[in-house]
């Protein structure tokens, strides 16, 4: 798509993929962090990781296996989160550990069979051997995430404010919540091979965390978080490929650095000197 301005096809694909993944993850990240369900994102990213490892082991396309695993965990998480008497920490802790164990089991097994090099892609991502259809897939998911927020904006904001109050106003919160889980699962699974199972959580949480240092309204966060994520991801891709460094880990470190600077510069912590 961007070949006319970036002739280097590897760099072009990397920038397209990182930007697309960033838009989807950052938009969903705003909802995830503001509702306070970061642990759900964490668990689903490791479910995709486990699915990818299983796919790699059995020769199933990694993305398809990751999508299936993420959706399976999303189907489990939805009802578990909805049940008031179930501690989310406990259930998500169990699911997360299970996913991590499955992923490590198959990766370790692959190392004994000599195919461990392929498995590192699942851990840290790979932007140098992407197909155009993978980029298109990510673009479609980003568009779906954006559309989801636009169409259900008032319901999403009400749930972010207070789920019980949203429910009491007559909003059916469960369909929105399940729809959100579904889109998170798909986004994470499609981003897995680019960003890596261990790092994708950075893309889900950090852009929203940076945006929240400067934005006083939820609407502005939905614009600032993807913008920040795209800028940092593109910078990471360019720097990583220019200096032959691993792109996703480098970008994750840049995210952390920008977040630290954002906290220092944030006007949210400023105490007024005004006497009136």
């Amino acid at each position, binding site marked *: 798509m961007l070949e006319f301005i970036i002739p280097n096809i590897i760099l072009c694909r990397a920038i397209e993929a990182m930007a697309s993944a960033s838009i989807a993850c950052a938009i969903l990240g705003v909802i995830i962090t503001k509702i306070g369900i970061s642990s759900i994102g964490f668990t689903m990213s490791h479910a995709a990781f486990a699915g990818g490892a299983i796919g790699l082991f059995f020769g199933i396309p990694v993305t398809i296996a990751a999508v299936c695993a993420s959706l399976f965990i999303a189907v489990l998480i939805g009802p578990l989160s909805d049940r008031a008497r179930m501690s989310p920490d406990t259930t998500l802790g169990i699911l997360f550990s299970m996913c991590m164990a499955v992923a490590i089991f198959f990766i370790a097994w692959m190392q004994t069979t000599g195919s461990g090099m392929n498995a590192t892609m699942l851990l840290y991502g790979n932007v140098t051997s992407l197909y155009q259809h993978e980029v298109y897939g990510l673009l479609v998911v980003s568009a779906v995430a954006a559309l989801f927020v636009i169409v259900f904006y*008032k*319901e999403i904001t009400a749930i972010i*404010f207070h789920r019980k*109050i949203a429910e*009491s*106003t*007559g909003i059916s919160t469960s369909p929105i919540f399940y729809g959100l889980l579904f889109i998170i699962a798909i986004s994470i699974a499609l981003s897995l091979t680019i960003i890596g199972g261990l790092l994708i959580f950075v893309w889900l949480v950090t852009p929203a965390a940076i945006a929240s240092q400067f934005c006083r*309204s939820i609407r502005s966060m939905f614009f600032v978080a993807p913008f920040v994520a795209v800028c940092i991801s593109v910078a990471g891709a360019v720097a990583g490929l220019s200096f032959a460094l691993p792109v996703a880990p480098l970008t994750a470190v840049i995210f952390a650095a920008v977040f630290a600077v954002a906290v220092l510069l944030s006007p949210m912590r400023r105490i007024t000197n005004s006497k009136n």
Partner: protein
Amino acid sequence: MAVASSPLIVLEGIVTAYEGADRPSLRNVSLRVGPGEFVMVGGPNGAGKTTLLESIIGMLPITCGSAQVCGIDVKKQGTAVRKRAGYVIQNFSFDPLTPFTVREVVMMGRYGKLGYFRRPDRHDAELAENAMKTLEIEEFADKPIGTLSGGQQQKVLIAQNIAKEPEIMLLDEPYSNLDLYSREYISTILAGLVRKGITVVVVSHAFDGLPDLPIHAVVMNNGSITLDRACRAAEIEDIVRTTSQVPVAHA
């Protein structure tokens, strides 16, 4: 208690149980409330007052009995009931960095009625503005809700429910965060709602400054209604105080 016109709330022997609990929180509760009644629900802590409110609007599962609110079966169509009934919750705390202004929170009261695909229009904005004026919080309209005091936040939640134009208004401890002036002011507003024909159900431990209206007193104890009768505002405190200790005294 006899209800002259067709009742808005009809509970017949309902039982409500929390998931995992050994015994139900509401046991065989029956209640009829008509349009424009002012209902005060009293009783000791843990008597089931909040459970009663949340059962009325279908936020908790009713395991036995039948419940009709605004002519709707609560067990089958809880969401439809909540579109027509307001509910001001008891326990809330909003982070100072919560990214929502008072105006946005009051407007959220309209969202359920609008449904999934409709955006708030000028009419909804007017209702939200009027609700803020009624509660005297329009000067805070553009402030983040988390920066307000507990009492001011309580008023915002009441305004949110008034903007909803409910047929029934349920309030759980609405006076708990309010000073004396604000209590009387909120009582006046609730009395205004009753005069418009809106049914108001209040769970409270505070009985001072109540509006001078006929009151439908309901006292709960141990998950059951132990008293259900009409009284005057001046009598309610004594009634609740004495009846709360009595196991069964259905009037």
